């Protein structure tokens, strides 16, 4: 593992093919954009950052194998990557055994800590409570859960059910869709939705399944403006894929939306689209990959070495002015203080922020049941600036 090059290597482990490529390719671009910006500004301590790219093809086991390969063959000592928890779980033992620092820029279900991981996405206490209170306040108290069939949706639903119950909410249906589900599966689910007539759908499907679900929902005659699909994962790219007609009215909770009108956010969007083309949508997961890569470079600049222990010491407690606003790595648990915003898709297919939490929310990855009335999670009406111009 002797670094002989005159660049700083960063392993970038996102799928460009397979069911989650729709999200992960955007995360990959987020990391690549940050690298490009850093290098354009002269690199770190006079050396350029060099991305080492691998495509695990959305197959969890391949993530572990490729992480191992990047470490042993490409001398990588810092990695960024992974979307699904099942993929992260494959990489975790590898980075711990080889003592490699691993940035994970994705929301997930919590209940994990590894000294080798810096978590850049939201855990349930940061996004579930704001979404639940918004839905209870604006739509009603009967909910239908639809999720993909793996750990994240099941754990998210457990948390959501607990929070909704505190506010008098009721779960009238709960289904898990396999990744290979076809149209008849969605038709069957949507017949049940029509029968149970919920006030909102809480959706934890990911990737292609999300696109199919939103399309089928619209095709079956449901209207997102009346009974929305609410999600923690559905993003700009998926809404662009299904189109404004299908997407209108649906709701997502995330730290950042591409309509956020702040200088840092505008700059990020403009650079992203200049780099990858105007048709490419920017998403909150891409934003997380982007700010994590920048935070890594800032730490590397201070430490002057890729030594994971030194980098971690420098990163814990560090803050950065991300597109979503100020973020900070919590030294207690390696997760990140994040903003929390609720946005609704308008007639043009844009996410318009409706509510936001005033301050970044402290991550609490081991919280079994978030409190609906937690005053740190109170929502305020979004600032008028947080709209598309």
């Amino acid at each position: 593992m002797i670094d002989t090059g005159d660049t700083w290597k960063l392993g970038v482990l996102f799928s460009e093919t397979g069911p989650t490529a729709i999200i992960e390719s955007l995360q990959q671009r987020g990391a690549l954009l940050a690298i490009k910006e850093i290098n354009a500004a002269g690199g770190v301590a006079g050396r350029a950052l060099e991305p080492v790219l691998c495509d695990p093809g959305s197959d969890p086991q391949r993530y572990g194998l490729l992480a191992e390969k990047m470490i042993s063959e490409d001398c990588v000592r810092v990695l960024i990557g992974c979307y699904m928890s099942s993929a992260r779980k494959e990489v975790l033992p590898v980075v711990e055994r080889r003592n490699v620092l691993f940035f994970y820029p994705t929301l997930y279900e919590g209940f994990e800590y590894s000294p080798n991981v810096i978590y850049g996405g939201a855990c349930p206490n940061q996004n579930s409570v704001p979404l639940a209170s918004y839905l209870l306040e604006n739509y009603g108290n009967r909910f239908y859960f639809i999720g993909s069939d793996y750990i994240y949706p099941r754990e998210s639903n457990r948390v959501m059910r607990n929070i909704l119950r505190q506010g008098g909410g009721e779960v009238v249906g709960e289904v898990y869709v396999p990744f290979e589900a076809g149209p008849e599966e969605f038709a069957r689910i949507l017949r049940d939705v029509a029968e149970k007539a919920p006030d909102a759908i809480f959706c934890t499907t990911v990737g292609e399944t999300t696109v199919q679900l939103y399309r089928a929902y619209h095709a079956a005659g449901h209207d997102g403006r009346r009974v929305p699909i609410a999600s923690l994962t559905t993003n700009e790219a998926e809404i662009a894929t299904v189109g404004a007609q299908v997407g209108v009215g649906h709701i997502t909770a995330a730290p950042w939306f591409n309509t956020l009108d702040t200088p840092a956010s505008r700059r990020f969007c403009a650079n992203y689209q200049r780099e990858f083309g105007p048709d490419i949508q920017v998403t909150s997961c891409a934003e997380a990959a982007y700010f994590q890569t920048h935070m890594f470079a800032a730490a590397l600049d201070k430490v002057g070495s890729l030594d994971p222990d030194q980098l971690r010491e420098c990163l814990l407690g560090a803050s950065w002015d991300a597109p979503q606003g100020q973020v900070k790595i919590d030294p207690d648990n390696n997760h990140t203080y994040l903003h929390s915003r609720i946005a609704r898709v308008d007639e043009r297919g844009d996410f318009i922020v409706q509510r936001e939490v005033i301050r970044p929310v402290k991550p609490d990855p081991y919280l079994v049941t978030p409190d609906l009335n937690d005053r740190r999670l109170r929502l305020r009406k979004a600032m008028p600036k947080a709209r598309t111009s």
Partner: protein
Amino acid sequence: MSNLISNLRSLNVLVLHPRDSDADDLVQQLNRIGCPVEAIWPLPDSLPPAVDVVFAEVKEAIPPGLSKLFSPRPDQRPTLIGLIGYENPSVLGGLLDLGVQTVITKPFRAFGVLSALMMARHAWLERLEALRNEEKLRTKLEHINIITEAKFIVMRHHKINEKEAYKVIRSHAMSRRCSTIEIANAIINADGLLSKLVVDPKDGRD
């Protein structure tokens, strides 16, 4: 049992381990889990009040100061989790002597502490529940013996069958507003007393 999971943060945890990086790692993970944690070293003379779970280092010889911290009565001792660096027979014997519910091995990893904490607490709660049931059954068995004995006394004295004898005892209990077991005990005592008075023949002659 999901109650146990959502109540984990209310457990008061004590860590008895020399102050080193192992202890730091464990205490930090317990903080992340969200339990109120206290770490004490060297061993205190007694446990702080209201400790629910103790993580204690177990080596080849258990210091007397450690075992004396824990009452032999299961309902008066906290849930115990052993922290071990070796698993040779001496250490294993120590774990049994101390009566731990589960073990965490060194070097500590964050992953696994939560499951160990929950399963140890679960085992401790189940043991307590089993003891309570055992106690209840023991009392019940004693009561059955007492009532049976009282029934036989009543049957002998009144030449009635067992069912009727029980009726007599129960109606007495009801009219005096006390339990059948109290009446049964009173009958046995009275019978003992009476039989003593009658049996000694010398008393009558003198």
